[in-house]
């Protein structure tokens, strides 16, 4: 039923197939009797920022965790550059090409800021020790964290921790960066700063960003594509302008939430 509704209102994908970097097809995931993802299909084109939107509890973060293999899914398939990356041995190319920014940052709290940056570089082992240090310090400088190199994550402010989490994700020059609720719990000024940082870094480094967020207005401004999850299905997939043109109250209520609040209080 949901799949039928989803088919009816989904905007056709305007990106031609060869440019697809990541493709999610018919993904299903349940926890016990609760089906969180019912039939999720969408494509992520190369470059740009794709925002995954939806109400709380619609499975946005679960979807992101399924894509990178942190959660096993029940059915469906995930394609990276047209190749199936469902099982661990075949997932390696995706994991090598992607980085993940966790909702609560997942910084290594017993390591310093600089060590947090060096851990992914050492895991790759592609650079010499001195080149790893240089690269980590350069990126910390770009993120205005160079003075905090020898401090521990717990000694940083919330904004600095978020910047460090993003810096750590970018230090390996990933092709795809997955952001799980990067602005959760931040005030509007910091929220804007985080989105600004994502756009700026995306333009500089040309990675593809997949951002799970609740911030509809900001997502409409910064993203090149919107994927809307509703009741475990993709209810919309298309450009921000096509999303803004949607009349369906399920979108408009969420999109224009301030007007909806004003109206309900009148």
């Amino acid at each position, binding site marked *: 039923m949901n799949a039928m509704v989803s088919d009816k209102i989904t905007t056709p994908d305007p990106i031609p197939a060869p440019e697809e970097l990541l493709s999610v097809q018919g993904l299903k995931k349940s926890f016990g009797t609760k089906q969180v993802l019912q039939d999720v299909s969408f494509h992520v084109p190369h470059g740009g920022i794709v925002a995954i939107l939806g109400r709380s509890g619609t499975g946005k973060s679960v979807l992101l965790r399924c894509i*990178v293999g*942190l959660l096993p899914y029940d059915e469906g398939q995930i394609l990276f550059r047209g190749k199936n990356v469902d099982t661990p041995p075949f997932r*390696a190319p995706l*994991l*090598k090409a*992607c*980085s*993940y920014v*966790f909702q*609560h940052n*997942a*910084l*290594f*709290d*017993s390591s310093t800021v600089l060590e947090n940056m060096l*851990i*992914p570089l*050492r*895991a*790759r*082992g592609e650079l010499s020790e001195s080149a790893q240090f240089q690269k980590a310090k350069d990126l910390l400088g770009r993120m205005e964290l160079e003075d905090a190199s020898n401090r521990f994550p717990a000694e940083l402010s919330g904004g600095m921790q978020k910047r460090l989490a993003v810096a750590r994700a970018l230090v*390996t020059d990933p092709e795809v960066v997955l952001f799980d609720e990067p602005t959760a719990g931040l005030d509007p000024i910091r929220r804007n700063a985080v989105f600004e940082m994502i756009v700026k870094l995306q333009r500089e480094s040309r990675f593809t960003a997949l951002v799970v967020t609740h911030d509809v207005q900001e997502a409409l401004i910064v993203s090149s594509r919107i994927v809307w999850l509703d009741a475990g299905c993709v209810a919309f997939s298309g450009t921000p302008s096509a999303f803004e043109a949607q009349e369906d109250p399920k979108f408009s209520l969420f999109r224009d939430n301030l007007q909806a609040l004003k109206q309900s209080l009148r």
Partner: protein
Amino acid sequence: MWFINALSKAGSLSCFSVLALFHIRSGGTLPARLIRTTYELGIRCLPVISIVALFSGLVLGLQGHYVLARFGASGMLGTLVSLSLCRELAPVLAAVMMAGQAGTALAAELGIQRSTEQIDALELMGISAEGYLVGPRLLVACFVFPVLTALFTIVGITGGWLSGCVLLNQDGHSYWSAVRLAIHSKDINECLTKALAFGLLTVALCAFQGFNAHLHGEAGARSVSVATVRGVVLSSIAILVADYLITALLV
């Protein structure tokens, strides 16, 4: 059913430990991780091991003095203290104390790293979390537990001398002679074998519980406390069970 469940858990624990040792180099910086782990498992446990060993020896000397006096065998105090410490008390008590100090810290640290997604982050970076976090601890346990058990034995025997000879006026020379004559290489072998086995069991069990804190049906801080309690209780039971089995095999 419970037997199959226990067997399955034992299998998972074995696979976890083998994976941890196999991928110990994953993520690099192995020497630094080994040094840090040696400090956490070894140096930080030194005070508690020394205090428990000293008082175990003191009590053993005191009890031994009066019990042996009943049979007119006060001269056997050195033999009693040294053999009971070397063959039984030192490996068991040292391992239980280390499970209490280092085991809880290990289970809690890994449990927090699991609940704050640090373990997920490591795995997404292509680092084996078992190898990076648990591998060095298992390796270090192989030499830290025997060393601390040896220290426990020495301090405990000295404690026996303090209570028996210094406080209760037994002959010190005959005490140390009895100690030297009582302990054979077989006894030292049994002591170190037990220490090695208990060390591996304690670290593997506590690490396994902390690492899989999210699988106990709890979340957040509660999952960490459940993992810590399970780690210490299970490793304490495992130490006693293994003690019986090793004693039965080596005696």
